[in-house]
């Protein structure tokens, strides 16, 4: 029986395993060093916040794996010998495979600051990171203040976590506004105000210079680059993004750049070895997508695709229209299609914001053809299926604005803003600034 080995029990590895099982009877082994069972990485924050316990993060009950004959192994793969198709474990022992899927995910991205190795300096990517946070920031007596470096989605989650335990948070971001490399200015500014309204000390245009430890090697303060200010703190959260987790592949012959290089069939340069999820770098970017996409949904889609290929229906990875979502404290965010903060030359934006400063949308469209290109929506839920269809149909922006109600996905009895948005759009059109 063909033995398929998957390194990584995250969403990509597990999706691949489940789908291979559905379509075949192959022997499947999933290896991970992080946790016994698949858990939802996206929900790590809720454990610290007390919304959920660890067990709630597991999407499948523990009996599921045995019942579906998915063998789980907890071990760290330290070396891959591709010519003998053998994996070696750090704990000792080895395992052979017929086909190998690497789904090793990401690790925290750092920039080699001085003091990085101090105790209490941590990222927020793994289960072990969560345990560290629980150790260094259990409450506001042990940790009166934490400093977070880098404003992205993980940073804002960490800020929200710490605020639930009344820990003061200083949040250093390089940019003018939170996440404004991705969000257009109006939105980034609104989210920045919202983050501050939750008692976060948001420092824009501020970089980290170095981290200072006390005699026991535990972080005591940080120094900012711009002003040289010393901010004392008991924990430093590194939230400057993630990078593919591929160091264990060194010397294996598997070709990597920033991530594991794959073609559209998700094949690496070595036969019978595939890679999916966060650890992957597309040799050629797909459409407007970045070559490395560290999001949940793409991992899942790659898992679905590679499972087909391995079960004899070779498929290319061909993701549909881009979509994503997040939540910034109390404000939900969804996006469909492309809205660039740094507008492309053909791109125009229509921005609407509610006066309560917790809801807004930005619609991007082609300024010549008026084709609808994408939408960012904050505080209003929208239907994935509808925008996916409109994008495929190349609808015009006027059509989208006129039919926006069809796309609303807010719970029943919620107030609707389509009329407001429509009027605002009409007014905007009358001004020639487009």
């Amino acid at each position: 029986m063909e033995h398929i080995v998957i390194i990584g029990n995250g969403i990509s590895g597990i999706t691949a395993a489940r789908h291979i099982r559905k379509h075949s009877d192959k022997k499947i082994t999933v290896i991970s060093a992080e946790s016994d069972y698949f858990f939802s990485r996206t929900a790590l924050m809720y454990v610290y916040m007390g919304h959920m316990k660890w067990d709630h993060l597991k999407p499948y009950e523990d009996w599921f794996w045995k019942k579906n004959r998915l063998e789980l192994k907890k071990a760290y793969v330290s070396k891959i010998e591709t010519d003998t198709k053998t994996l070696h474990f750090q704990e000792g022992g080895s395992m052979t495979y017929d086909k190998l899927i690497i789904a090793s995910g990401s690790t925290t991205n750092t920039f080699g600051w001085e003091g990085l190795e101090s105790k209490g300096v941590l990222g927020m990517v793994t289960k072990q990171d969560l345990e560290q946070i629980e150790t260094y920031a259990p409450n506001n007596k042990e940790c009166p203040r934490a400093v977070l470096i880098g404003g992205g989605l993980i940073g804002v989650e960490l800020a929200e976590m710490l605020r639930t335990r009344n820990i003061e948070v200083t949040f250093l971001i390089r940019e003018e506004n939170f996440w404004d490399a991705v969000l257009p200015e109006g939105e980034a500014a609104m989210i920045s105000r919202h983050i501050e309204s939750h008692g976060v000390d948001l420092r824009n245009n501020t970089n980290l210079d170095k981290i200072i430890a006390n005699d026991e090697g535990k972080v005591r303060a940080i120094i900012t680059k711009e002003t040289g200010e010393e901010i004392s703190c008991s924990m430093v959260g590194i939230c400057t993004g993630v990078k593919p987790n591929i160091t264990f592949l060194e010397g294996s012959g598997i070709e990597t750049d920033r991530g594991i290089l794959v073609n559209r069939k998700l094949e690496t340069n070595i036969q019978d070895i595939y890679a999916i999820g966060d650890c992957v770098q597309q040799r050629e970017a797909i459409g407007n997508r970045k070559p490395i996409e560290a999001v949940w949904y793409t991992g899942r889609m790659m898992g679905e695709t590679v499972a087909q290929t391995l079960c004899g229906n070779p498929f290319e990875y061909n993701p549909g229209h881009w979509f994503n979502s997040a939540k910034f404290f109390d404000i939900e965010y969804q996006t469909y299609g492309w809205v660039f903060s740094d507008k492309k030359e053909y791109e125009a934006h229509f921005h609407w914001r509610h006066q309560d400063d917790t809801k807004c949308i930005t619609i991007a469209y082609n300024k010549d053809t008026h084709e609808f290109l994408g939408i960012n929506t904050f505080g209003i839920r929208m239907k994935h299926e509808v925008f996916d269809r409109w994008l495929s149909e190349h609808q015009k922006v006027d059509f989208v604005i006129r039919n926006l109600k069809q796309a609303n996905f807010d719970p029943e009895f919620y107030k609707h803003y389509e009329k407001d948005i429509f009027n605002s759009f009409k007014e905007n059109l009358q001004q020639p600034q487009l």
Partner: protein
Amino acid sequence: MSKIEHNMSMTGDAPASVSTTQKIASALGLLGLFILLLALTNVDFPNKTLFLSLSLGLIAAGTIVFANDAYRGKHAGIKNDGVWLKAFTNRGLSAWVIGIGLTLFYIVLYWFPEYLGLNSEGGNTGVISLFDPLSKLINGNPASQWFVYGTLYTLAILVFGYKFILKYRHNNYEILRTFSVMFFQLGFAFLIPEILIRLNQPYFNPANLWPLNYDLFAGYKIDEFFSSGTLGLMMFAFGILSIFVISPILTYKYGKRWYCSWVCGCGGLAETAGDPYRHLSDKSQFAWKVERWVIHSVLVFVVVMTIAVVYSFLGDDSKDTWLTQDVFLWGAAGFLTLVFALIMIFKRQELAKDAKYGAIGYFVIITAIIGMNYFSGNNQIFFFQGYQLRSWYGFLIGAAFSGVIGVGFYPIFGNRVWCRFGCPMAAVLGMQQRLFSKFRITTNGGQCISCGNCSTYCEMGIDVRAYAQKGENIVRSSCVGCGICSAVCPRGVLKLENGSQDGRINSEEVLLGNDVDLMDFLNQK
């Protein structure tokens, strides 16, 4: 096991720990309860009206001040910080104390009302006597233990309803349905029946439907209706109409939530006072299995019991009316057969493996009916009196299950244990909801991140995530449509909707977002 897998409360500070204002508010509320406790120990208050008002007022004020401090002036949004870190909401010591306290209260209420001050002879004493002034004001009679219970129950729904509305004030669905349960509890469940008593009419709560109200067809009740002129007949007619006509129509249009989350008093208490415990429901597949067996057994029990009670009420066939025992029995059997046959013919697919259980339930009832016909005589059903079956039901299900376990164990098993495992009304509405309803929870394309908030906060123990992460709609008989899964979802994935029957039960495994060809390919298979 590592710390986070075990339980962080060992080290972690409960983040939203109680503020000074909240402590004072709790003290006020407890003072109100303390007055009741004093009355219980037979302290004879000089001015009962004053002390009763004081007591209820303090309880209300305490809760309101507490809620204001907890939610007012804070951001509107999901307020689940620290739920699993606090003893009170994570089965810690205080949870057990409350649970045991409530359980004892129910035991005394159902079986030892004399300890509350109900005397078989002479006026009330104890805590019941404290409620005499209010009872006389509303229904003209001295209080009973049920009046005391009804008052406290209504008060709880009102003040905790207020708290719930503040907590979910960003969510209009939650606000409206909470106003609705507050209205139905105060008006329909509390005031109307009491005022009817004052007017010398039968006690009747129009919002309490059979089979939840298992006494609706008890002999004494039917006698009461028929001896109360037009109004009594109207009540009886309404009772029948609401089961066979009104409720199926509403469930068809809106799902069982119209009752369970908008009208019902049991649901009302669970949603308001029980809200802090909704996450304690068991989500395992095993619990789901147990649920289906238990709740449908209760349904079978109540149907057989009601048939038996009506059967013995009708008495022997000598009365001169067309509705004889035989007509009734065969009519009931015929009706059930028709319903069963229709379901099997038109809804086999939807039922899938549940069909087997449906068939078992059906045959138990039919056998019971036939048994009644052949083994009964001189008012006996099988070998005992019909009313005995009713009193067993009342003891086991009406009191022990719905009260003692259902409410007493809120802090341990969650707030909807009764609604999920026990309520025969929920079973009937659930079947309708599963098979003939427009209601479903729609999932939003590929947006689910499998975080688990929805499943954790589903009070009915439905593993919502299992559907959402596959992009499948949630069409479950037990869903009471509380809307909390949709509220807590951080990615806007879930929406409660009434829509067309087409594609209501979908089971596309591949989620939106991936290659369209691949999706088509997989869905063909």
